[in-house]
């Protein structure tokens, strides 16, 4: 046991969620995520992965149970949280720079600081050149980078990602995964990530929570003890393959045909 008690950043205690019509999506769900962890929720569709993210962000309330983010209710903790959606969800009428500055603008940060911050983040994701372009001129991967820059602009301590790379081709997805880890190294945020992809989950995570469905619940939690920094070379290593196999097996157990 550790000497000092570190309060978990995300805490779910006995959380259940049913939608109107009585469909139960989550059942007595327990999960804790410590600071600087990268936790991935992995499971077949309909297992409530996205619902967990919506609950953390306070976009929907739990039917029962307690959720705490840094000891606060999800709604009160929103300022420390950013959300990255499956689609880039950019505003098409705004330039890339204005899109990145959106969160800061809504929070009332003044123009100069906003521009500085947006420019810095665009450089960080390698899009400094297209700051003045409109979203429709960008490729899918570039749009997703803008979306990530926008999420990071408000300096979040917790990043929620709902299958952010699902729509990208495999090579772009791999690159984005590497880039995401690089950004995490620099900025030290905590992440809760949702995906279907075993390889993606193993590459990114410190822990993978494998979910069973109907109703959604945690089947097993697999710690991924591969050393950081992780690079593209890791994907070719036997350790990675072994880990992926373990996770795939657990996933199969969790979702019987």
């Amino acid at each position, binding site marked *: 046991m550790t000497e000092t008690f570190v309060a978990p950043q995300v805490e779910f205690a006995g959380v259940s969620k049913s939608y109107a019509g009585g469909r139960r999506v989550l059942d007595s769900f327990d999960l804790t995520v410590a600071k600087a962890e990268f936790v991935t929720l992995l499971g077949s569709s309909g297992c409530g992965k996205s619902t967990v993210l919506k609950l953390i962000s306070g976009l929907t309330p739990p039917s029962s149970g307690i959720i705490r983010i840094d000891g606060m209710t999800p709604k009160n903790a929103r300022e420390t949280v950013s*959300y990255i*959606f499956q*689609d880039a969800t950019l*505003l098409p*009428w705004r330039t890339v720079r204005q899109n990145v500055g959106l969160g800061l603008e*809504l*929070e009332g940060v003044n123009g100069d600081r906003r521009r500085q911050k947006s420019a810095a983040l665009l450089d960080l994701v390698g899009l400094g050149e297209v700051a003045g372009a*409109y979203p*429709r001129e960008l490729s899918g991967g570039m749009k997703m980078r803008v979306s990530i820059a926008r999420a990071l602009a408000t300096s979040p301590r917790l990043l929620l990602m709902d299958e952010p790379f699902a729509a990208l081709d495999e090579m772009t997805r791999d690159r984005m995964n590497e880039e995401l880890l690089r950004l995490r190294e620099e900025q030290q945020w905590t992440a809760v990530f949702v995906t279907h992809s075993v390889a993606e989950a193993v590459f990114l995570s410190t822990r993978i929570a494998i979910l069973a469905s109907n109703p959604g619940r945690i089947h097993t939690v697999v710690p991924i003890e591969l050393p950081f920094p992780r690079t593209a070379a890791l994907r070719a290593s036997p350790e990675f393959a072994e880990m992926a196999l373990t996770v795939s097996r657990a996933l199969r157990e969790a979702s019987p045909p």
Partner: protein
Amino acid sequence: MRRRLIPLANALGVFAALIFLWQVVLWIFRVPPFMLPSPWAVARAVIARFPALATSLSITAVEAGGGLLASIVAGVVVALIFAQSRWVRRMLYPYTILLQTVPIVAIAPLILMWVGAGAAAVTLIAFIISLAPVIANTTQGLISVDENLVHLFLMHNASPRQLLFKLRLPHAVPSLFVGIRIASGISVIGAITGELYAGSSRVGVGGLGYSILYASSQLQTDYLFALVLAATALGFGFFFIVMFFEWYFLHRWHESARAPETD
């Protein structure tokens, strides 16, 4: 450049062919001029009576344009109210359908009775007939925002004001223009229909509808044709003005407003 000129040349070719066909019909069937004047007679009428034609055109343009502008303003306001809640929409939407289904020819005499003959009545008719498409399309644009975008705004604790001005309204602009484009055409039809009834408060001077009625009663068929051409040109003019504004506001970011690719 050449590629753009070819469709234009084709359109002009079709026009020339139609004029020629018109003339051929006259030669073969020996139609009397008061039934169908020759293209040259129509052209002569346009030139000879140009001042009167221009006056009628400008009267109708002002009435239709006034009605259209009023319908854009009122339509956006109503759409903003409709966008507030589904409950409001359910309660009030049937009335916008009513607006669309009521035959304008049937209520024109009523309006004439209430407002009196003249430009005000005609503008009101153009306004009523243009309103429904603006309301329907703008409402659709305001409420069809991607749910995730709304979530994104909520995650940053956006106020209802920010949600409206930074998300819903800009998102609705392309649909607003769809509504305005439809409304621009029917505002001209509305104004001319209105003039057939509510014509003019001064004898002998009136918009295109009034002059059409007058020219037909005098069997000035060549001038009647000139007036019909002017009415068509007015509809075209409105359409192109709207297209220009649509391009101006949307071409940087919206797919529909891009210059069409030549294939």
